[in-house]
């Protein structure tokens, strides 16, 4: 029982971080039909912005994090949109898929060549204590990660549902043409979506790097998990991506303990295949209309 509780908490904590990446992934898909195959690398990179700020420019941790956040907004948000997505969008999804794959390789190799190929220790943001809760040892770090990730997603949800800009963004995602007719600045709303994705990636990166070291190849698994979470939960729903992220986090941790370590990575994949066969729109998703 204590063991189960322990697995559940660490699974939820990891899952909440996965959910951040998955939410960004679904937002991009909704706003501009961009399937971002570099999403994992988007989560890998900001941690290196922080490390570079601290080691090369000698900034204190908080200033480095702030700089990394701004850099992520500029590089992963605005530049990604302007330089890569915009010129390619009129040609359909396929060239864009290839381009994001290439972008992922570019980011990964650049970090490897210009920073380091070794995993880098990342300064912890929260106390490293472990508390004893009914016999289960639960780390403060996990709890804090869970809280921060949830706070980010809830404030995003509130922004999208309660503010004028947020609603305009939702309208854009549902039907850009109608939104434009109703006076929404569609281009600006799509840009906001890309900025939000950059911010989410930065938060996820800074939360997850103290747990697993910052390494250039982190994006491979993170990207895969973000896809799976987004699809399992529902490709066109933020709630879906959140549920998917949490589910994958918990299942992955359960599989590590109760299934063999060798086939641990297979469990989320099998879940993915089953969901696509049985319910292609995802657990919480609504079916997409056929485009004729």
């Amino acid at each position, binding site marked *: 029982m204590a063991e189960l509780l322990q697995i559940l908490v660490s699974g939820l904590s990891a899952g909440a971080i996965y959910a951040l990446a998955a939410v960004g992934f679904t937002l991009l898909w909704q706003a501009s039909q961009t399937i971002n195959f570099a999403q994992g690398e988007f989560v890998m990179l900001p941690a290196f912005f922080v490390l570079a700020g601290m080691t090369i420019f000698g900034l204190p941790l908080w200033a480095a994090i702030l700089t990394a956040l701004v850099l992520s907004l500029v590089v992963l948000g605005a530049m990604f949109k302007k330089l890569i997505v915009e010129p390619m969008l009129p*040609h359909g999804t396929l060239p864009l898929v*290839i381009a994001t794959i290439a972008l992922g390789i570019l980011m990964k190799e650049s970090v490897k060549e210009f920073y380091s190929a070794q995993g880098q220790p990342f300064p912890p943001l929260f106390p490293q204590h472990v508390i004893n809760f009914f016999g289960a040892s639960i780390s403060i770090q996990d709890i804090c990660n869970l809280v921060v990730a949830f706070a980010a997603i809830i404030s995003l949800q509130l922004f999208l549902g309660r503010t004028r800009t947020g609603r305009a963004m939702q309208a854009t995602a549902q039907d850009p043409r109608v939104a434009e007719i109703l006076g929404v600045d569609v281009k600006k709303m799509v840009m906001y979506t890309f900025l939000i994705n950059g911010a989410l990636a930065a938060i996820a990166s800074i939360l997850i790097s103290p747990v697993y070291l910052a390494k250039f190849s982190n994006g491979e698994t993170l990207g895969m998990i973000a896809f799976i979470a987004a699809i399992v939960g529902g490709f066109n729903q933020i709630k879906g991506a959140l549920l998917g992220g949490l589910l994958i986090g918990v299942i992955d941790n359960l599989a590590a303990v109760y299934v063999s370590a060798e086939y641990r990575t297979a469990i989320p994949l099998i879940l993915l295949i089953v969901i696509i066969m049985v319910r292609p729109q995802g657990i919480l998703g609504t079916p997409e209309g056929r485009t004729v």
Partner: protein
Amino acid sequence: MTALRLLFLVAFGLALFIAPLGQGNYIIYVLCSWLIFSISAMGLNLTLGYAGQISLAQAAFMGIGAYITALLTMAGVHWIVAVFCSIGASFVIGLVLGYPALRVQHHFLAFVTLAFTTLVFLVLRNEDWLTGGSLGLVGIPRPVFGPFDTMKQLPFYYFTVVCFLITAGVMAWMLHSPWGRAFKALRENPIRANSLGLNTTRMTLLAFAIGSAMGGLAGALQAPLVQFIEPGSFTLILSLKILLMVIVGGSGYFFGPILGAGLVVLLPEMLRFTDGYYLIIYALLVLVVMIFSPHGLIGLGQKLLSSFKPREERGDLKQGAQL
């Protein structure tokens, strides 16, 4: 077929036979792997360029083909028998995987095939009683055809050329048959194809299975070429590489994947002097090609050609297209 095209084909065929003469073993090895990846990329081109479905399972099918051929030939079975087993198994697995997956199509198919590739890798790595685990299989024999022994590099190259030409011939024949035209119709306008009486689901499934079978054939050639296979060579990265070959070359064009395979296989060799930076340059090149020419290099070539020599189009056809 115009005279120019015929001339080009003959020149290409001649170049294939002359290319390895007087070259070292390593160059011949690179040429062999170019031909093998061309076969694999042509298979994916059938799925992607003609039937319009993104598959990321090509590496898995190459792996399946390579392992079946390796295990059979190491057990003493002749390569000819083994290669038909590889092709057959890939075809059947393609059907079994494709039948449920093609209900969802497009980006969902990409994700299902992505998961499949990773699952195949896990099985190859973990079931070491059969596959040798992460150490792989060593000492795969090269085929012997009576007096013609392919143990040396040059004979093996010509053996690969023959396999390549047969595959390309079958592919060209298939694309010009009513069948192949149905594939094209499927890509251009699936709804119209359906209303003209084509069973689109069955055609798409067949395109996927045939494409997979060609992946199996490529694997069956890869195993005796390298004489050593391990699960790590058939991961998602390879699937992405094959996808790159098709897209960068020009998907939906017959020679697109062959050009793309040449580029993807040879470019690392050419960029060797840049040391560790070659992947960075490579990724940048792909990005630039994608931004400026989403239809690949052949598409770019045709665009350039038509800007110098505008093709005369019949006015009535143009008008019809506008209706």
